[in-house]
């Protein structure tokens, strides 16, 4: 809506004179804002998120156990509640690198052959007093595994080498204490 004023010669003259007066010049550069890229909040936030993601990813990758151990952990999860003896004690002792005439450590809950990561494995779940439940896997043709340990998928895991032939055994337990006891029961004593 324009002002409803009847414009006359005076208005034309006023406009003409005003257009010649008050020449402001160009926009001073100091009035314009130029925030550097790194000073922008969005960029800072993105960098912080990226650093956190990278840190998280690096942490996850650092904690990630070998494939066969992850397969063993998954297997243990699905058979956690399974109980029974599905194989003889002596062959299982032999696969675990223990003397066949000795008793099975702890109170065995589950003994059975199974398949992990496409190969035959021997599965022992036993209750160790003052430690808790621990699951031991011996593989028929185990890959080269170093003696390491860690935490993955809400369980503690450890790779130890058997007493007799030094084959890698995979120990999985929900409590770290159980792993310590299992290590002394199944693993080679430190040199």
């Amino acid at each position, binding site marked *: 809506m*324009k002002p409803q004023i009847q414009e006359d010669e005076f208005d034309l003259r006023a406009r003409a*004179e*005003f257009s010649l007066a008050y020449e402001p010049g160009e926009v001073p550069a100091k009035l314009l804002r130029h925030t550097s890229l790194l000073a922008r909040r969005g960029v800072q936030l993105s960098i912080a998120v990226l650093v956190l993601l990278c840190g998280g990813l690096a942490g996850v990758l650092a904690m990630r156990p070998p494939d066969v151990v992850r397969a063993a952990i998954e297997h243990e999860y699905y058979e956690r509640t399974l109980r029974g003896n599905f194989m003889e004690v002596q062959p299982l002792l032999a696969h675990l690198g223990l003397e066949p005439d000795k008793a099975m450590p702890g109170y065995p809950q589950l003994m059975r052959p199974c398949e992990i990561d496409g190969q035959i494995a021997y599965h022992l779940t036993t209750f160790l007093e003052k430690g808790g439940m621990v699951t031991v896997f011996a593989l028929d043709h185990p890959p080269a595994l170093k003696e390491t340990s860690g935490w993955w998928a809400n369980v503690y895991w450890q790779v130890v080498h058997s007493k007799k032939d030094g084959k890698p055994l995979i120990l999985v337990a929900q409590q770290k204490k159980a792993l310590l006891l299992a290590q002394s029961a199944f693993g080679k004593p430190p040199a």
Partner: protein
Amino acid sequence: MFLTSEARYNQWVRDHYRFLMRSAWALTRSRSVAEDVVQDCFTNAWKCRDQLRDVTLARPWLFQIMRRSILRYVNPCTQSIEDGDDADWGQAPDTGINDRLDVVKALGRVSQIHREVLVLHYFDDMPTAQIAEALEIAPGTVLSRLARAREALKNAMTMSPPACPSETARPTLGNVTAIRRN
């Protein structure tokens, strides 16, 4: 098109700087004060940039901010700006040109409220609704004030300036000169 707030602000500066600077200069009658006022205006506009809902009203909104900045330069008791680098009643205002233009000189002699409406009408040919927005008054008031302001401007052109500024009562905000903010 999506614009960041900084890009939008810079666009305001590019689009409205000339109008605001001319208006401030005409209202304060001092280029240096006008520069300060316009800078102050853009600083405040940046702080309140989210308050502008309708981008088509950016110019009246900026004028409104600038008008408040000008009032901060005015001594609230005397309604005049103290001390400065500018012309007084008898002389032409600092318009940036050497020629003495009657209308421009006369603009310096009308009251502040008339000067504001004349500046918006003649400098920018701003619609009544936007003038009302800029001056925070009703559109009907704009029309009546503009009519009175034109008459005041015409009368000011026919008036002869007083011989000595100190002996003559000055009009409200007629003598606008610089005061530096701390």
